[in-house]
C-alpha cells in the first residue's frame, strides 16, 4: 500500500486524537480528513481480499459510516484510529467473502473484544500506523516465499493453519513452522519501527 497521509498529517498539525474529537462533535470535515488519511490503505486491503471494485467501494462506505456512527464512543486519548480502521476494513472484507462461514464471522471478534480504543501503551500518532505498515512491508520482504504465502493467506483470506495446509498441500507442522517464523519476523519488524 502506498501510504500518502496529507501534508498536514506529515507536519503533525492534525493528530488522530483531534480528528476523533471533532468526529464526536459530528463534524463531517473530520470524517473527510480521516477518509483522506486512511481510505487508500483500507481500499487496497479490501480490494486485495474481495477482488471486486464495486464490493470494495460498498464496504469502504460501510466502514466510514461505522466510523461516523461510533465516533462518540471513541476515546481519542487511548486509541489507535488507524489500527482500528484497517482491522475493521479487513474484517468486513473477509466477512463479506466468507459470509457463509460462521466460524470466521464469530472469530473476527478480537478487535472488538479487546476494545480497539484501548492501547497497550501510549496513544499512536496519526501517521505512525501507516508509516509502520510501510516499514513492516520492507522488513517482510526478507521472508521466504512460503513464509510470506502463509502470512498472506492468514491475513487476506482469513485461513487457519489447517486450512492453509490443506490449501497449499503442505503438512500442518510445516505450515506452523513457516507461520511461526513469519510472525516472529513481523514482531521484530514491529518492535523495530516502534523503537524508531
Amino acid at each position, binding site marked *: 500500500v502506498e501510504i500518502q497521509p496529507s501534508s498536514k498529517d506529515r507536519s503533525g498539525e492534525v493528530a488522530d486524537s483531534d480528528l476523533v474529537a471533532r468526529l464526536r462533535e459530528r463534524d*463531517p470535515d473530520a470524517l473527510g480528513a480521516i477518509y*483522506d488519511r486512511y481510505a487508500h490503505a483500507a481500499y*487496497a486491503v479490501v480490494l486485495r481480499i474481495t477482488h471486486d471494485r464495486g464490493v470494495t467501494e460498498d464496504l469502504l462506505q460501510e466502514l*466510514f459510516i461505522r466510523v461516523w456512527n461510533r465516533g462518540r464512543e471513541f476515546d481519542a486519548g487511548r486509541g489507535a484510529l488507524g489500527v482500528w480502521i484497517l482491522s475493521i476494513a479487513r474484517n468486513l472484507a*473477509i466477512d463479506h467473502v466468507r459470509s457463509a462461514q460462521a466460524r470466521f464471522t464469530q472469530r473476527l471478534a478480537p478487535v472488538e*473484544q479487546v476494545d480497539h480504543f484501548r492501547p497497550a501503551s501510549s496513544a499512536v500518532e496519526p501517521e505512525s*500506523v501507516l508509516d509502520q505498515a510501510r516499514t*513492516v512491508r520492507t522488513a517482510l520482504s526478507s521472508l521466504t516465499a512460503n513464509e510470506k504465502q502463509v502470512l498472506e493467506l492468514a491475513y487476506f483470506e482469513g485461513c487457519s493453519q489447517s486450512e492453509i495446509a490443506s490449501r497449499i498441500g503442505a503438512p500442518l507442522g510445516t505450515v506452523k513452522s513457516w507461520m511461526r517464523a513469519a510472525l516472529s519476523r513481523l514482531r521484530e519488524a514491529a518492535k523495530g519501527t516502534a523503537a524508531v
Partner: protein
Amino acid sequence: MTHEEMFELYELYALGVLEEPAYSEIYKHIEEGCEHCTSRVHSAVKTTSYLAGLAEDITAPRNLRRRVLASVHPVSAPVRSWTSALGGLGALCLVLLGMALWSSNQAQRMRSTVDALTSQRDDLRGRVSTLNSERTELLRRAQEMHAMVDALTSQRNDLRAQMQMLVAERGRLRNQRGELQTVVNVVANAGTRTLPFGAANDVPHGRVFISPTGGVVFVGLQLPQLAPDRTFQLWLVPAKGPPRSGGVFRPNSLGEAIYASPALSGNLNAAAVAVSVEPRQGSPAPTTKPVIVVPLRS
C-alpha cells in the same frame, strides 16, 4: 495453557484464524479480564494491522470520497449560526427548485416514455391481430389438408384392395395358362390318342386326349350344371383296383370345360377315364355314379 505457551498464538487470535481449543482459552482469559492476555492481544491487533502494507499500491477512486461523505453529511451537519442557517435554507430552496425542475423534466421524459410505450403497445396489438388472422387461415388450410389426406388414404386403401384382386386374378390366369400349356402339349403330341365320347349334341359329349407321357386332357360340352357346392371329379380307372383321382373341375355357364390332368406314368395303365359329381373339395373315391365313362382300350 500458560501465558508462555500462548505467546506465539496472540497474532493468530488477533487475525481470527486461531483454531480450537487455543482460541477458546484465550477468549476466556480476556472475557475474565486477564490483563496480560488483553494487552498481548491488543498489541497483536496493532502488529497484524501492519500487514496491510502487503497489499498492492492502489488508490481509491476519486468519486468514492464524495459518496462516503454524502452518506453521512446530509443528516449530520450541525447548524452553527443564523447566517449559516439562512444560507443553508437558501441553498435548500435552490436545491428544491432544482429538484422541481428536475422532476418536471423527469415527468416530461416519463410522458414521452409512456407515449412511446403506448405506441409500441398498439403496434404489438396490430401484429397480434395479424398473427391471429394468419393462424386462422393456417388452421383452415390444415383442415383442408386433413380432408385431402383422408381422401387420399381412402383411395390408397381402395387401390390396395384392387391390387390384391388383380394379384389374385393374375395367379388364376397363370394357372389357366399352365393348364392350357399342358393341353397344348398333350394335344400337339404326335403320339397322343384321341378318344371321343357322347354321340349327340344335346347330351354331354367331347374328347379325351392321352399322351405317351401320361398327360390326360378332358374336353367336355353340354355338361350338366352343378349346384354351387358340387364339382366334377376326373377318375383314372385301372383294370384292377380302385379308381385314382385325376383332379376336379367345373364347367362354365354354357356347360363347357377343358381340363388337363397332371401327367403321371401310371395314367398309361388306366383302362378308362370317368367323371363323377362330387363335393366341392373332391373325394378320395367316387361317391356317385359316373356321368361320363370313356374306355381307353378297345
